[in-house]
């Protein structure tokens, strides 16, 4: 902790130095956090001491084997349009997925729709339906701040546990790309808004060895698969689609030694989009209620109860809960957890090293500890939704050591 405090002081001094000498000409301050005339921006070190940990969240990503359910069916005379099962990509695909679901609802020419569920998918679907002129009522147990959506990390990850290759079939990648591209466009309309609901930050990865993209070839020794076991058994079963939108999403670039702000041999930097949950939710809820939307606190016990609703069209967006509510056993829980530190407004970057990462957002610094050897398989089939503190503290200690090491290099 003392060392961390020292880095902070050193960083502040160097930033100030860099700023003061900017006008004067070239400056070469070695090591961490140098304010160069050109090149890396100044970095304020993250404060990663345990006293900063103010929350831990755990959530279940609703991985659906065939990808999100966007199908329709008739229940009790109602047209039900599904919009659930977005794995670790719910926020990132929300606008595109809502566009597809609302489009199917509009095709039956309703004047009003019911939306069941008020996570990011339900609320976005509701707002999109309103933008098309429909009267919308949301029926849900909770509003977004108390849903699983608020227990995500908030980083833009449109391809995270989104589907399994075989069950999703050959058509799915095109649909995914359509949803991902539309969502990306919509997020860009939210940049720079008050509260910064959507923001870009620099994302650094550091390493002791050259950084290479990891691939997951199929392991022939693993003979079971989703088809036989009802759960994926290895990473190669997962759809990996991110490369399809690499033309618009910033990719990591290696940093030459002179631009590496950390005292680590190798580093990459990319620009990472992320979501600030409170500001984002406030904007969506304001629009929803501002357009006359109604929220009804209601719990449904079985699909047949949808017949009681006054609306003829229902958009079903209950996420992981669809596994039980709709009896969809192809929705697979994938556990994930995050630690949340007090927000540090001067810190606008993220740092990843091996299995651990810290992402600074307006609503806090998100700490994650994800075993890289498990890849997409981490948390699959695990529906324990209570957080475990030890891995979070371990991650904080690992990252704090990197800052200490960087400070040592800078001294």
């Amino acid at each position, binding site marked *: 902790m003392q060392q961390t405090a020292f880095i902070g002081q050193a960083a502040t001094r160097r930033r100030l130095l860099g700023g003061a000498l900017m006008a004067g000409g070239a400056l070469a301050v070695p090591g961490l956090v140098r304010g160069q005339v050109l090149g890396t921006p100044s970095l304020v070190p993250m404060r990663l001491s345990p006293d900063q940990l103010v929350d831990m969240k755990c959530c279940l990503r609703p991985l659906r084997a065939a990808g999100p359910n966007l199908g329709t069916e008739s229940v009790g005379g109602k047209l039900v349009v599904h919009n659930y099962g977005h794995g670790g990509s719910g926020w990132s695909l929300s606008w595109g997925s809502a566009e597809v679901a609302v489009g199917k609802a509009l095709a039956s020419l309703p004047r009003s729709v019911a939306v069941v569920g008020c996570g990011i998918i339900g609320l976005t679907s509701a707002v999109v339906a309103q933008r098309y002129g429909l009267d919308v009522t949301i029926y849900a147990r909770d509003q977004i701040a108390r849903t699983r959506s608020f227990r995500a990390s908030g980083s833009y990850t449109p391809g995270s546990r989104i589907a399994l290759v075989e069950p999703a079939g050959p058509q799915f990648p095109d649909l995914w790309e359509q949803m991902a591209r539309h969502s990306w466009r919509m997020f860009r309309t939210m940049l720079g808004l008050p509260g910064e609901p959507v923001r870009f930050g620099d994302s650094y990865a550091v390493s002791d060895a050259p950084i290479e993209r990891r691939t997951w070839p199929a392991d022939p020794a693993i003979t079971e698969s989703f088809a036989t076991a009802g759960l994926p058994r290895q990473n190669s079963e997962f759809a990996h689609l991110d490369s399809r939108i690499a033309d618009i999403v910033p990719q990591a670039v290696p940093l030459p030694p002179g631009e590496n702000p950390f005292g680590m041999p190798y580093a990459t930097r990319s620009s990472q989009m992320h979501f600030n949950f409170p500001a984002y939710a406030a904007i969506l809820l304001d629009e929803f209620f501002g357009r006359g939307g109604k929220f009804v*606190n209601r719990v449904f016990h079985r699909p047949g109860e949808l017949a009681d609703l006054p609306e003829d069209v229902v958009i079903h967006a209950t996420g992981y809960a669809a596994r*039980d509510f709709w009896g969809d056993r192809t929705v697979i829980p994938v556990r994930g957890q995050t630690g949340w530190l007090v927000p540090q407004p001067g810190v606008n970057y993220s740092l990843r090293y091996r299995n651990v990462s810290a992402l600074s957002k307006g609503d806090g610094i998100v700490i994650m500890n994800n075993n890289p050897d498990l890849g997409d398989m981490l948390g699959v089939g695990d529906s324990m939704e209570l957080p475990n503190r030890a891995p979070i503290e371990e991650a904080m200690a690992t990252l704090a050591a990197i800052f200490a090491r960087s400070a040592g290099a800078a001294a």
Partner: protein
Amino acid sequence: MSARTGQLVAALALVALGTGAALAQSRGGTGTGRYTAEQAAAGAQVYAINCAMCHGARMEGRGEIPPLTGRFVANWAGRPVADLFAYVSRAMPQHAPGSLAPEQNAHLVALLLQANGVPAGARELPADEAALQRITFDPPGPAL
């Protein structure tokens, strides 16, 4: 308002009153003592081991995890106890859904009824969804 209409309104009001009373304590409902105190006590044991870790020692819930009193009544009362029993049997505990025996789930439902102000009685709550379909979860009325 004519006398005739007045009579009609009065009659309707009586019917409404009757319906209200029926709702508060339906004939096949939990208001007439449909679980035993022993079952609820056994349920407390099951709860402590399997449920309290998420829903809390006082059933208070936490943030995203729903409490099992208060608004719980709004979610589950006025419908067959079978719905609650089926949900607990099928979906809980969340980390190991469907892992509890039917008797354990019946004990948990007895505990939940007790915790929400439903009186115990001499009859045991059956651990059988079909039988529970005939028992309505009567709202206990306001906590005074």
